[in-house]
């Protein structure tokens, strides 16, 4: 469940500029999306929360976190039904990613 740059390394083929651009987008967008997700939950707009999870879920795929992707996928589907079963697990995934990205050298 640890994030990895394996996919980005393979994709970029050594193009460090490209890899840095992707990481900077992730670092910029993920906290904003996570905040929007929390706001959606607070206002009980679970459908909107599920839409944000869907977007974040794609970012999870770029970091090769297969198990986390499955949890996010289930969380997205449950949110659509108004169920909050995977709240904690999803939060842990986000924090793990943010932690990982923030430790990446500029």
């Amino acid at each position: 469940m640890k994030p990895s740059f394996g996919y980005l390394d393979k994709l970029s083929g050594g193009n460090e500029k490209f890899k840095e651009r992707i990481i900077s987008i992730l670092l910029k967008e993920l906290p904003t999306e996570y905040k929007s997700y929390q706001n959606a939950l607070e206002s009980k707009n679970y459908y909107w929360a599920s839409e944000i999870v869907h977007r974040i879920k794609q970012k999870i795929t770029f970091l090769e976190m297969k198990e986390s992707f499955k949890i996010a996928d289930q969380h997205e589907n449950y949110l659509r039904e108004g169920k909050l079963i995977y709240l904690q697990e999803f939060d842990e995934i986000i924090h793990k990613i943010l932690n990982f990205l923030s430790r990446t050298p500029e």
Partner: protein
Amino acid sequence: MDCIVLDDESVSREIVNFLCEQEPDLKLIGSFSSAIEAFKFLNVRTVDLIFLDIHMPGFTGFEFIQTLKSPPMIIITSSDSEQALEAFSYESIIDFLKKPIQPEKFKKAIAKAKRLQNSDLGKSPIKSSFSGQDHIYINIDKKLIKLNVSEIQLLMADGDYVKVITEKTEYRVHTTLANMRKSLPEDNFLRIHRSYLINLQKIIDIQDNTVLIGKSVVPISRTRRTEFLRKLNLI
């Protein structure tokens, strides 16, 4: 080959952009996060290929395809493989790439697009099943319902909705008659009144200024009468 990408997720767009840069025959001429932006672009430019995400807020990729009269080749990019099956019911969709997109799969999809472009299929715009003849999809409560075009009797404007009346039932779709008309074959469907679009094949009889279709009596507006009669001679 001119192409665009439509995806609400920015990293996905960047990745498609990067992969396109590796292909000498591909020229990415637009990158859009919303269907509306892409529509505006496609109103003034034609493209050979669209990389299209399915799950987008407000307007799904499938709905986007339905609104294109002559869709170019489309490669679906999605993190959900469940949509793959539905994707292949659209003639314009030539491949499905699951996210994260693997470079070798991207290359294969592009090779396929090139082959199709060089074949007879690629020389003329590919018609999707929607701008073709046999069926359309309508969006009811976030579900896409497949309707055989031949079963549609008529469509009636109803405020912000359109009532689609088929042989068996009727549906209320949040759209306009003008939009629905774009999805239906011009040879068979004609607007005979500001509020009515009819399937000419379903006419039972014509009396003065009305047409009987199924159990519905539909008025023919004076301004559209000539076109209506001319069209009937072509059937």
